[in-house]
């Protein structure tokens, strides 16, 4: 098992840092899956996460100038690591004006991702700051636990409104309630609602675009034949939604959500070279 990678371009480095910052807001620990072409940050839906799960995919070629990976075995040329993304995020904070960042998998006393940040210095020798981030190597026999979640058979699929507005509204609502109802229909309408003994607040978004019915494999989803005005709704933990929105430091190219009424809300946020899916289960 070997992994070493290097980023030299400052724009790529900042972009990579932003992705890690977003992941750190969503998961305390997560799985990093390395393949020849891609990196994946995965959070599977355990009770400890409040049932939320995440699948984030990046093409390594868009970020790294050098990328060498040798998996656990020839037929399984991948590496699965468990890590705390906040540690990686903190290490990358020191790299804001770096000349280069090298990441290497090491096993001196225990498995670590060694992040070496080369900083500019006045003398001819570079300054290098090294962070050793402990990781857990995930054995191949449980790799099946981390498969890409299938897109659920959704009732409504709709593009999200301006994230900035959504973020402000959800942040205020978080002061008022622990739960939020997100509902949307096929007429481009979405509502965010909270209700407690003290107060009820509903924000109405209109003129949003819906996606056509067909799901990925070309089959018609259960959205077909659905009454256009009828709302699909899910009551979710407001903190999960707030974390997702707060983690978006840059506006995604595409932001949409799929709702399975009373079951799950599936958010898809696409940037040019990163795709993030976040699943929040509905509560009773």
């Amino acid at each position, binding site marked *: 098992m070997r992994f070493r990678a290097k980023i030299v371009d400052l724009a790529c480095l900042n972009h990579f840092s932003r992705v890690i910052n977003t992941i750190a807001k969503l998961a305390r620990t997560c799985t990093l899956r390395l393949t020849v072409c891609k990196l994946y940050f995965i959070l599977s839906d355990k009770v400890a996460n409040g049932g939320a799960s995440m699948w984030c995919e990046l093409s390594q070629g868009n970020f790294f100038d050098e990328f060498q990976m040798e998996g656990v075995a020839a037929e399984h040329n991948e590496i699965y690591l468990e890590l705390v993304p906040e540690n990686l995020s903190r290490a990358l904070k020191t790299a804001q004006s770096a000349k280069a960042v090298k990441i290497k998998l090491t096993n001196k006393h225990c498995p670590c991702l060694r992040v070496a940040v080369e900083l500019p210095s006045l003398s001819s020798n570079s300054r290098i700051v090294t962070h050793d981030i402990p990781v857990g190597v995930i054995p191949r026999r449980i790799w099946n636990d981390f498969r890409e979640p299938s897109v659920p058979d959704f009732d409504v699929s709709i593009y999200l409104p301006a994230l900035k*507005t959504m973020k*402000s509204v959800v942040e205020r609502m978080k002061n008022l309630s622990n739960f939020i109802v997100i509902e949307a229909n096929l007429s481009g309408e979405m509502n965010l609602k909270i209700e407690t003994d003290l107060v009820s607040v*509903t924000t109405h978004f209109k003129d949003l675009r819906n996606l056509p019915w067909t799901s990925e494999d070309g089959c018609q989803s259960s959205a077909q034949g659905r009454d256009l005005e009828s709302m699909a709704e899910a009551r979710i933990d407001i903190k999960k939604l707030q974390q997702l929105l707060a983690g978006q430091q840059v506006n995604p190219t595409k932001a949409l959500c799929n709702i399975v009424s009373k079951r799950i809300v599936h958010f898809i946020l696409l940037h040019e070279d990163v795709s993030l899916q976040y699943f929040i289960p509905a509560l009773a």
Partner: protein
Amino acid sequence: MPFSAQPPASGEPYVLSASLDNARHLSSLLRAVHFQDHATCFATASGLRVTVEDAKCIQANAFIQVEIFQEFAVQEESVIFRINLSVLLDCLTIFGTSSLPGTSTALRMCYRGYGYPLMLFLEEGGVVTVCKINTQEPEELLDFDFCSTKVVNKIILQSEGLREAFAELDMTSEVLQITMSPDKPYFRLSTFGNAGSAHLDYPKDSDLMEAFHCNQTQMNRYKTSLLKPSTKALALSCKVSIRTDAQGFLSLQYMIRNEDGQICFVEYYCCPDENITEVEL
């Protein structure tokens, strides 16, 4: 105006209905008196007054007079209700607190009377938020009975002169002592904290002093913890009037200019901790 001014089709008519093109005209003033969760709202033909009290010793009032509103209608002589101010503020600022140039949140407020919730309709950029906040039985409020005939000492200062003093108030001092006198030191703020005592003097001919009417030497002490929230009102204001009566009760009146240049007032009343009328040097 995005919202209809008609009363609801069914149910009681609104006893209070008001509209504001810029909800910040209301929310920023309410923040200046937000030191407790609950507030009492009074609506009369003159406008809206929101009162917050603590410990039966301090009372703050925010006045948003009728001219500030684009529309303001009260069907009864006065409408009174108690409401959770923290919740009200979260609703008024639902679209965020930062003021981007050219954007503002439009507000419509409606209330059907005793037992009904307060309805807020807020709109920004085509997005509408509807809030329904439960109201409570209004409680008995303090009457400081502070009228101009009972005032012993009065000064009017430009707020910028006091801002730093209040922001850096020594919180290890239990009391803030205010001395007002026709003779030196004229106007003095004193604290007695862990590191020692601090005195801040404002001479009566200072540039910051807009008016100085002190007839009697008074030295009064007020609990710092009670007065500290008034810093929020001071931060927003351009001028402040400081008045005391014979019992040492303190009235602070803050003149606040809103984004459109209109004048609003916030006042704080505070009971003295001790009353020392003799000069102690």
